[in-house]
């Protein structure tokens, strides 16, 4: 088994990061001006007025999934029940104030940022997740949704107008990472159009990747870290100085397949990405911000839209960064974003997706609660640490 650890390369870039931060400390105002160490990378700037304001006094809660369909429509899933009664005062009975109400859990925006449809919630014939998590629109236009709540052991398929299509996995089952009949609080779904298979980041309860037939839900294969057989034994909290864990730590938070058939898995609390073949053969791994504890650093990824998918974008909701990486080497070229509630800043950036034009979309969970757009502005020279990427006035 080949183990290509990229810790050294990442460590080097973090030296650069720390140096840049030290320079930034000399001035109270952080600038994005060059610090000398420029690198060629795709560039982005936040669109602060995208999307358009929601209608009906609607609010979104923790927003824990984003996907882009073939028409560049942007889909999100959020948790209406994460909104406090104070925030949804207009939705109480009787209403307490004129503002606000919880939006339906699934929202679709057009490329201009207009809300064009909304649906979701319990219905006949399926079990709506106790806690929504992850949205994916596949090559046939089907909308997939996972769930990481108590008893969420299944994934759901809907048409784009919200009509129920299928439910795979038996809800209510306790975690068993070697089950072939249910899942364990699935974080994200990715459908491989070529093989018509769905890859499940499985999940908050299980320590594995699970693969099912995208049309029938038939269980096909699964594996754990390094391709090992998953083991549900509690291995305790992540220790950056301990030998690398031979199992995923929950949650396994993304499992996205590149156009050349490599699967990138977010082993979130272990602060690493692991790369596999479609069949689950381990290829390589990279540690990212490896001293990050708790929630971890590797929350979600998306690929650049060039045919080779030269770049990989990694969302880190603990350090509040988007890392721009070279997919082949897994080297971090640059990072942007920072903590805060202003445009281009994050609190718990959770999910990331790209559209056909190369624009990035992010969503934030916890109290961040936003969908944001970062417009792609081409390839150019940027600092290793960009800070908040604002458009020029």
């Amino acid at each position, binding site marked *: 088994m080949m183990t290509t650890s990229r810790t050294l390369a990442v460590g080097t870039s973090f030296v650069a990061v720390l140096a840049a931060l030290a320079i930034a400390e000399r001035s109270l105002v952080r600038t994005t001006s060059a610090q000398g160490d420029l690198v060629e990378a795709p560039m982005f700037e936040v669109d602060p007025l995208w999307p358009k304001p929601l209608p009906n006094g609607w609010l979104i809660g923790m927003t824990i999934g984003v996907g882009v369909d073939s028409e560049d429509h942007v889909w999100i899933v959020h948790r209406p029940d994460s909104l406090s009664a104070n925030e949804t*005062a207009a939705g109480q009975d009787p209403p307490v104030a004129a503002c606000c109400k919880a939006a339906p859990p699934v929202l679709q925006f057009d490329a201009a940022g207009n809300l064009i449809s909304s649906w979701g919630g319990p219905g006949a014939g399926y079990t709506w997740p106790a806690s929504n998590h992850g949205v994916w629109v596949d090559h046939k236009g089907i909308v997939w949704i996972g769930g990481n709540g108590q008893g969420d052991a299944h994934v759901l398929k809907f048409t784009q107008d919200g009509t129920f299509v299928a439910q795979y996995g038996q809800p209510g089952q306790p975690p068993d990472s070697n089950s072939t009949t249910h899942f364990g609080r699935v974080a994200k779904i990715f459908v491989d159009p070529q093989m018509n298979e769905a890859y499940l980041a499985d999940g908050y309860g299980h320590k594995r990747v699970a693969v099912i037939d995208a049309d029938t839900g038939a269980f096909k294969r699964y594996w754990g870290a390094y391709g090992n057989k998953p083991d549900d034994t509690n291995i305790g909290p992540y220790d950056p100085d301990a030998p690398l864990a031979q199992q995923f730590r929950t949650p396994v938070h993304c499992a996205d397949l590149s156009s050349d058939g490599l699967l990138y898995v977010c082993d979130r609390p272990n602060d690493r990405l692991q790369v596999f073949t479609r069949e689950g053969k381990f290829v390589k791994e990279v540690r990212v911000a490896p001293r990050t504890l708790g929630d971890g650093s590797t929350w979600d990824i998306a690929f650049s839209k060039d045919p080779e998918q030269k770049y990989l974008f990694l969302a880190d909701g603990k350090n509040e960064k988007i890392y721009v990486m070279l997919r082949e080497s897994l080297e971090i070229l640059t990072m942007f974003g920072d903590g805060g*509630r202003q445009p281009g800043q994050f609190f718990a950036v959770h999910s990331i997706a790209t559209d056909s034009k190369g624009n990035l979309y992010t969503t934030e969970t916890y109290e961040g609660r936003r969908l944001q757009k970062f417009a792609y502005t081409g390839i150019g020279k940027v600092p290793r640490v960009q800070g908040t990427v604002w458009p020029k006035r």
Partner: protein
Amino acid sequence: MPRNYLAVASALTLAAAVGCGYAGQRAPTAAYDVDPLWPQPLPRGWILGSVTGVTVDGSDHIWLVHRGAASMTARTEIGLGTDPKTAETCCEPAPPVLEFDAQGRLVGRWGGPGQGYDWPLSPGGLAVDGSGNIWIAAAGAPAPAGRGRGRGTGGRGGEPATPPPAPPPSDAHVLQFARDGKFLRQIGRPGEAGGQAALNRPSGVDVDASANELYVADTGNNRVVVFDAGTGAYKRHWMANGEPFRSVTCASVSADGLVYVCDRAANRIQVFRADGTFVKEAKVAAETGGSGAVWDIAFSRDRDQTQLFVADGQNQKVWLLNRDTLEVTGSVGAGGRWPGHFYAVGSVAVDSAGNLYTGETLEGKRLQKFVGRR
């Protein structure tokens, strides 16, 4: 790719004003656009907690005070601010008092515990006096805001509307600092017994520079108290006219010497002369429950101060009122986390050019700027 963001932002305030009228108070479009790229990003991975006070000084510098780590979730929000650290590059609480210039650059920051004074368990509002010194109210640790899986806390503003009986109050004072953060004076002491000068979780302050008097919204005692801003000596106080104040959160003095008092949970503004003589009152968004609609008041900067701005952290907007008639003439904002939206907007201030600045408490945690449309 330069774009005129203010022009684009017009649509936002238009939609907000049309979409969220309330109980017969549907307001015409307010002529303000959010500036989404103000202030500049903070350095050092600093983030804001719940903002409890915003004011503008004589140089059009914008000041805020926020609750810092006490209003943040250690596990998820401030990985650089815990011991041991749990993150590599973000974030930690910014110092509690921040000063921005008109361009939105951070030009000063200070605050926190020190020798000779009691830093508030939770700050409330802040104000600049005629000498350019900064007054900060010590508003007391607030109760959690509402149910739900999110968490919320707030100094000025937030639930419950009726303060719990908690004598002796743990925050019972106001503080004066020089603009560089040097401690100057404390009025009141936590745990200090009774007396007409004793404060109880005051959440708002304002200064009448012409009389050199400090007005305090003494929330826990349901009254307005006036001190000599030069000596700190108690001068006078008064209670509500009619029904007692339910939660008095501001006492703002106009240039013509009228005192506008926020009775937040009663959705009520009461107006007094400087000696406490009642003049008039008005309701704003009268049917609002919860924390109420009248959280903070600022005046327009025209000579006659013809407009009032009322921060309403329950309906998530800033109301515009005719100061003479106290009628609502418009509003700015709507609920949400995007620019120009609000969660728990509890503070409002105006600069000499007429720009509005808002502070959001609870989980809003922002300072925002709104520019008058010309």
